[in-house]
């Protein structure tokens, strides 16, 4: 319980740090984001909306601590301000409409990469110098060196534009209405395949090599020797004895890699014009939509922190040593 509480404290602190950073940035940085935004948005803004933006970015005359308190109050009510690029939709609505697609893309590719990567690592460590151990690591190191978004561009060009096997943008075909029908689900999966594939291909190598290295030291443990001496079936030793104990570092890196996966998913979405928050982030950058950028930053941070907390709970469940100490 102490472990969980300590971690929870860290997460709360991390979120507070991001909140405060978010508050400070427009106030400390030189330049005037509001006038830049106003000139970009031209005449679409009403005078009182400009006034609201100025308040959001600290250009009012109240003392800083008062601004900070009202800022925290707004965030607590889910009020991130109004999006400029999608004026006059509130930022929270823009994000709510998009985040599902990002969770679908990021979640699917994360699960697939973790499962396949760890399985490959187990097999590679079990048969050192065997087929899997000699072929996959060099290839995966090589593929893992590519930037996510560049591999996505390559996949889009090759399989989407040239071969025409997969759709080249959006999450579902134009004209379809989102619903729980087999046809629609199939359409979504077809659109999901290429973006997810690029993330899986890039991230799988890290999982495989990490698992391989832990497995190698685990298989050298005495209890593995003991299991062999007892004459247990190799498959049983491999999964029930070695893998179970080698899994813990993988769970730890799962938490740490979440932020990385999110980054990869965001950039991949940009390439495929996949309608998640990453694509929204691009239009926010291009449209100088500061409220949307900040809202996305806070939302993504919160999501990653919550996911990390879930990983911690799983970790406590898996490793009794954490519960005791």
């Amino acid at each position: 319980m102490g472990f969980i509480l300590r971690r929870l404290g860290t997460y709360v602190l991390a979120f507070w740090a991001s909140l405060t950073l978010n508050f400070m940035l427009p106030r400390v940085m030189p330049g005037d984001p509001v006038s830049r935004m106003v000139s970009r948005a031209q005449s679409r803004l009403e005078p009182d909306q400009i006034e609201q933006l100025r308040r959001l970015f600290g250009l009012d005359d109240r003392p800083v601590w008062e601004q900070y308190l009202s800022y925290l109050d707004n965030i607590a009510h889910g009020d991130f301000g109004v999006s400029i690029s999608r004026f006059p939709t509130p930022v929270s609505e823009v994000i709510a409409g998009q985040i599902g697609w990002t969770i679908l893309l990021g979640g699917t590719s994360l699960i697939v990469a973790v499962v396949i990567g760890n399985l490959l690592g187990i097999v590679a460590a079990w048969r050192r110098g065997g087929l899997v151990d000699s072929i996959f690591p060099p290839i995966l190191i090589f593929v893992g060196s590519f930037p996510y978004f560049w591999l996505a561009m390559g996949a889009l060009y090759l399989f989407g534009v040239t071969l025409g096997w997969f759709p080249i943008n959006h999450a579902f075909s134009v004209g379809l209405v989102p619903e729980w029908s087999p046809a629609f689900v199939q359409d979504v999966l077809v659109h999901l395949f290429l973006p997810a594939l690029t993330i899986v291909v890039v991230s799988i190598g890290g999982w495989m090599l990490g698992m391989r290295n832990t497995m190698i030291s685990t298989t050298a443990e005495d209890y593995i020797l003991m299991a062999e001496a007892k004459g247990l079936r190799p498959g049983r030793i491999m999964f029930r004895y070695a893998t179970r104990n080698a899994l813990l570092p993988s769970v730890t890196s799962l938490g740490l890699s979440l932020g990385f996966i999110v980054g990869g998913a965001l950039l991949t979405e940009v390439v495929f014009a996949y309608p998640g928050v990453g694509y929204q982030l691009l239009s926010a950058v291009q449209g100088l939509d500061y409220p949307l950028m900040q809202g996305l930053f806070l939302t993504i941070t919160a999501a990653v922190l919550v996911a990390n907390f879930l990983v911690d709970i799983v970790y406590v469940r898996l490793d009794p040593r954490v519960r005791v100490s």
Partner: protein
Amino acid sequence: MALSTGGAAAPAVPAPDGPGASSPDALQEGSAAARRARGGRRLLAYLLRSRKALAGLVILLVFVATALLAPVVFPGDPMHITATGSLPPSAEHLLGTTAKGQDVLALTAWGARSSLLVGFVAGAASTLIGVVVGLLAAYAGRTTDSLLSLLTNVFLLIPSLPLLVILAAFLPSGIGTVVVVLIITGWAGSARVLRSQALSIRGKDFVAAAVVTGERPSRIMFREILPNMASIVMSGLLACIIGAIGAQAGIEFLGLGDGSTVSWGTNLYWASNDGALLSGAWWVFVPSGACIALVALALALVNYAVDEITNPRLRTPARRRSATDPTPVTAAATGPGAVTETGAAGSTKGTAR
């Protein structure tokens, strides 16, 4: 680049009693320097013997040479429009031209300058901060350690791409901003790994001896502890550079870089903006991405070689071996101590990714 010389000092001299026995005496100092130079040469010899490292170093050298020679081979502004747009590769333009009519080969060669410079500077600076924070936390312990570890964890937890985006969006745009932003998001990973390693060295007897003899804390941290974890600093540095080059390309691809500089990231941004993908102009976006990948691959190869030199268990055995084969009863068989050592190295590796 002071770091790489520091990094070169050690993996080959792991003897923990060596530096601990030295005292701040001119004669001793000289022999320590000689030992370090010898260690550096030995590491280089090891690296050159490893095929992985050799391949990595050769690729890196080629790119550094390209970056240095770009102004000589391709004089003039690479952004200049010299031909008609979207020409496929030909004898005149070896890698074709962009939709605007710039020579892709010149853009790629010039891009190496900014990408490598930013990557190496940001990577080295974040490693430097990571070293200082990690050593300070491990050496000082108590409240300092708790505070620094908390700070490190907070920076590790905040997802870096969205953080990069809001920082780069609010800071005045320019190459300096990119470097600063990459350092802010990059230092925490190496600080965490280095702290745990420094913590285990902090508990060794020679550090206690140095404390008792009254050495200054800075000397203990940088002359006693640091040389003994140089291989981890080295792989942390390489990982930081890889991360910085990738992250730079990422934020430039989103259009948050300095639009006036040519780098691999901005090349990809323009390629995507000009619709190179949909018009089928593969030659516009392939070269820059391939360069990023090759540099990252080269650094990763050197990194794996450093790992294998310091941790022989990870070397791929010449002969296929199954985990269920009978254990060889020779001098090669390792004791339980070696096993825990590899376990620790494996897990630090995992967190470093």
